[in-house]
């Protein structure tokens, strides 16, 4: 009581909207703001994957099987021996172990492969429809190797595959959450607003769904997918499977908010204004918890990403030629591959970064969601 009156005296103007208050609070959560920026970059690179990825993710080259990552050198000596700015990578020299007959790559300091920003490349379509023929980083001669994060067992560029995998993995999370949000909002909203028998049944169904062990359930559902579906259909089927289970959490959040808001005086006031149920919900109740829902949804995205990764890792989710972080990690399943080519674990790092930043962002949003709480 005292705290509120105290605040009243200070907020002289009071014309800040709720969103301005939320933004003000969110901005003070440094980690969340930083995570937000990282996530924006991640999603940008997912959207612009063709442009950012130096190579075609499916292009293979048997000469560079398990080639290690190259490092970018920014400076070079020109013909007179002076240092100049000329970014380049070094080429590979292959040494063959005479006993084990194992080929190993060493960097060849003599071979310098200059890099170019926005250089010309094979023509491609950005996001599938914008024709372009420039990429962020290119090499002059397309036959020279460029493997900034190394190559996999078929000599494909891990970095390019990782960037393309970002697109699938992040969109699975987002689309899956949006689908579960729709189901959760409708079911949870009806359940919370009308209550009664419907609420009772819905809650028992949710409890049942949540009591199912998820991995076997996914496995069962994924195994039920017909083998002859194409990759895209499987992709959509997997997101649907994930959201069919993921909606329960969001439905509970929505129901809880409805239950809490239903008894608020200002909702009763709206009812006494003679407002219809639809108007009460849309005008008075939904704005009160959109921020909570956004926060809950953003906390649900990493769960989806992890679930997709887990499914694909087990070989039940997405299948090659679709590239996702889980599919990429499948490559790193055997210990020998990891021992000889630890760079195959980079997709794992991407998963960790994405999940952590989303959790931090969701935390920050949840704290900011109720700007009136002290």
């Amino acid at each position, binding site marked *: 009581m*005292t705290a509120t*009156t*105290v605040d*009243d005296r*200070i907020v002289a103007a009071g014309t800040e909207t709720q969103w301005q208050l939320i933004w003000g609070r969110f901005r003070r959560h440094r980690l969340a703001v930083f995570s937000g920026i990282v996530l924006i970059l991640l999603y940008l690179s997912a959207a612009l994957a063709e442009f950012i990825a130096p190579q075609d993710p499916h292009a293979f080259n048997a000469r560079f099987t398990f080639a290690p990552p190259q490092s970018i050198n920014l400076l070079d000596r020109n013909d007179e021996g002076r240092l100049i700015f000329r970014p380049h990578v070094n080429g590979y020299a292959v040494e063959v172990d005479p006993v084990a007959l194992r080929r190993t790559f060493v960097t060849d300091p003599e071979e310098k492969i200059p890099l170019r920003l926005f250089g010309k490349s094979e023509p491609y379509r950005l996001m599938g429809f914008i024709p372009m023929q420039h990429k962020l980083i290119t090499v002059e001669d397309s036959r020279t190797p460029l493997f900034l994060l190394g190559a996999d067992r078929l000599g494909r560029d891990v970095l390019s595959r990782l960037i393309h995998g970002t697109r699938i993995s992040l969109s699975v999370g987002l689309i899956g959450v949006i689908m579960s949000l729709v189901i959760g909002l409708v079911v949870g909203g009806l359940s919370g607003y009308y209550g009664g028998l419907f609420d009772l049944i819905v809650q028992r169904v949710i409890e049942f769904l949540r009591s199912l062990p998820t991995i076997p359930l996914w496995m069962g559902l994924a195994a039920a997918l017909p083998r002859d579906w194409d990759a895209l259909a499987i992709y959509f089927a997997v997101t649907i499977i994930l959201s069919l289970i993921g909606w329960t959490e969001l439905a509970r959040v929505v129901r809880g908010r409805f239950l809490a808001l239903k008894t608020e005086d200002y909702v009763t006031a709206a009812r006494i204004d*003679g*407002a219809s149920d639809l108007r009460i919900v849309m005008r008075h109740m939904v*704005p009160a918890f959109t921020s909570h829902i956004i926060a809950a949804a953003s906390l649900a995205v990493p769960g989806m990403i992890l679930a997709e990764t887990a499914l694909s890792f087990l070989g039940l989710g997405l299948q090659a030629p679709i590239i996702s972080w889980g599919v990429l990690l499948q490559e790193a399943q055997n210990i020998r591959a990891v021992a000889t080519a630890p760079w195959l674990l980079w997709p794992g790092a991407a998963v960790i970064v994405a999940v952590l930043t989303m959790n931090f962002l969701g935390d920050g949003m949840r704290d900011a969601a109720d700007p009136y709480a002290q």
Partner: protein
Amino acid sequence: MTPRETAIALEPADQSAAVPAPEVADEILAIVDLETHFTMRRGNLKAVDKVSLSLRAGDTLCVVGESGSGKSVTARSILNIVKPGRIVGGRISFKPGDDAPIHLSDLDPYGPAIRAVRGGHISMIFQEPMSSLSPVHTIGSQIIEAIRLHQPIEKKEAREQAISLLKQVQIPDPEIAVDRYAFQYSGGMRQRAMIAMALANKPKVLIADEPTTALDVTTQAEILKLIKSLQRDYGMAVLFITHDMGVVAEMADHVAVMRDGKVLEYGDVDQIFSRPQHPHTQDLIGAARLMESGPAAKVAGTLSEEPILQVRNLNLAFGTTHGMLRRHRAVVHALRDVSFDLRAGEALGVVGESGSGKTTLARCLVGLYKVDSGSAMFTRGDGSTTDLCGRGGFGDRSLYTEIRMIFQDPFASLNPRMTVEQIVAEPMIVNRACPKSELRSRVADLLESVELPADVMDRYPHAFSGGQRQRIGIARAIALNPRLVLADEATSALDGSLRAQVLDLLLKLRSRLGLSFIFISHDIGVIRYFCERMAVMRRGEIVEIGPSQSICDNPQHAYTQELLAAVPRADPKQSRLRG
């Protein structure tokens, strides 16, 4: 600089110099130039600004002020429990008789030295006993813990002490009650248990922070009496925080009036009440006495004999089920054969303590609850009658344009996501009562009629104080030119002078718009001030109904008499606890 600090700087110097701390011989607690600040998003809030108070042994000092005046923070500063605030200046000295004084403000707020004082020499009771008591421990174990924190005795002995403490605070069957939980106690019993806990170590000073504000008036009278008699037995000094001048007159030996973190006036209780010096003190006393007399402003216009509402034999019972198989059904009769008439233009007050069914009655009349039986025939503007409690009564939503409601809590009843304009315009939009182009000017008119400037329209509710918010709620209620207004504890969340201002505003609107009112309150003074007639409710029944003045002057029913006797008078000469 915050706007508020500017305001302080502009105050004349002689006023901000406040009242000098009096030097007293048997002083037990001295507060000198205390400053407690809170760091807020927009600067520093001086919640307590150079406050000096002095408490004598065995004496009662009442600190009175409206909400936000800094009275609670002052009390909390004594025990240094002001997080997230900070004590930035001044000195609080506790002088336990022969020993050297302890300077409480210099102690580490987490250190053992101050912990020995808290609950030992100085204990505190709070407004909300339910949230101050642990729900998962028995009352007894909480008292025993309080005892054993300060005294090296065995659990068994402490338990004996706990039982005798409960006996002292007049809890029936203390041997059984000691093993009960907080939720099994009523509000008054919880506060008694809190007092028992506070007394566990025979403190020299008891700080009571609005201990009776959450209680019904009859319970309040009992608790005040209990504190007074325990104070005598233990020889404690009591620092009593309240906003209620009536309680001050009952309890105080000395009074400090606070506003905006400053002590405006300090003095003997008789002197404060008979010769208040500061205008704010005069306002507070005036507002309290206003509610003790009959209605000051008479409503213009004559009352018609035509009833606008005829309520007949309303019955409503809430069933609660217990046990695994839902076998036991305990039935609470919220309304029992409630009948009354309301004439057009009349204000009927409904008074009763919590649980008397008065709010249920209001909710039935606006269709939020369905009654079990009975009818409420409402005469509409066009002369037809509708049964408000009948089937489909409020199926016709246009009924809501004629019957409106004002809510108790000005903080909860306004949507924080909507601007003032949207809030006030909402009923007109919903009922298509006003063309879109004229909406804004209509809202401006309405705001003006509740005495708010029209340029606040684009602000959000969080920018307003409680009184201003209640005005916005009133503007919303009258937006549709209603004929009947139900005010459910409309002024209970406001204190002192604000309450009087809002009541006067409602009186003005009543005569201007010809409104009929059903005014629900636990405060018989408010009802007497506002309503021509009153109905006294108890356990769902109307026990007495009649003209306000004659009920107050000559109550017939025993319960009404008890209710009236329990109301503290803002006059120390009429105090029943003194002498």
